[in-house]
């Protein structure tokens, strides 16, 4: 059975493009010194994954990927990097713990090899397909996804609303200056 016979040239081209973009960005995050460059590499990876989502006909998720990740999360990263001024370059030539990098490389390669081997050797039984809802596909899946999120996953959707509120409150509490009451008291004293 020839795997390559079944796929068309444009599909392969789009897949290769998305894989090249995301892998180049990922390696970029790994090797650059400056955190700002790492954030820009992250944008490239996220864009590559968005292209892969389009190839998988997940149009809505591709758009959300660009808007939320590249638009909001990476901007937040860049904002914190520039706010803190931590473009202090990390020295990548020294290895603080002896043998850390080879150990990490062996562990990660072992992980990757075992997952891929499981995928090719193992035999997986899946239950009845389309349990949640049929993914109709062709004309985009926004309607399918919306129907699932607002019916089957309604409780999870409401829970994420609570999670986001908690996260915002937590961020405000964490980022507040630790001696805010004291400073306020000083200001009050100065005013009197």
């Amino acid at each position, binding site marked *: 059975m020839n795997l390559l016979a079944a796929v068309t040239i444009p599909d392969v081209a789009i897949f290769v493009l998305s894989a090249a973009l995301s892998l180049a960005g990922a390696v970029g995050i790994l090797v650059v010194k400056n955190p700002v460059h790492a954030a820009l590499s992250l944008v490239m990876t996220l864009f590559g994954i968005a292209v892969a989502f389009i190839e998988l006909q*997940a149009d809505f998720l591709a758009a959300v990927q660009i808007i939320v990740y590249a638009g909001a999360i990476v901007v937040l990263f860049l904002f914190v990097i520039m706010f803190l001024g931590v473009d202090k370059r990390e020295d990548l030539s020294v290895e603080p713990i002896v043998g850390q990098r080879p150990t990490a490389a062996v562990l990660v390669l072992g992980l990757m090899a075992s997952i891929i081997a499981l995928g090719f050797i193992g035999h997986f039984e899946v239950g009845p397909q389309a349990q949640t809802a049929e993914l109709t596909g062709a004309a985009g899946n926004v309607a399918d996804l919306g129907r699932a999120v607002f019916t089957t996953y309604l409780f999870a959707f409401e829970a994420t609303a609570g999670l986001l509120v908690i996260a915002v409150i937590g961020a405000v509490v964490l980022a507040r200056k630790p001696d805010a009451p004291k400073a306020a008291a000083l200001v009050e004293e100065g005013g009197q």
Partner: protein
Amino acid sequence: MSIPLSWFIVLAVVLFGIGAFGVLVRRNVLIMFMCVELMLNAANLALVAFSRSLHDVGGEATVFFVLVVAAAEVVVGLGIVVAIFRRRQSAIADDLAEMGG
């Protein structure tokens, strides 16, 4: 006929591996954070690929929630980084070792 599922799974595994390697090796807290985002995205890619392969919208709905949780995680995590930086003037993980034995 579209791309087989296995190609996407291999891509997702490689991206996850690069992210895991980055978390293990890099010392800048912000870059470790970016590597965690990379691992989350690799998992998202696998979920969408399986969702397409099994014709079930559940995987894509899960990716939607993963995106929300990732956003919340980044907000809180960067808040912690800002708080640490205020106190220690450093974003290198090795400098935060006073709780070590």
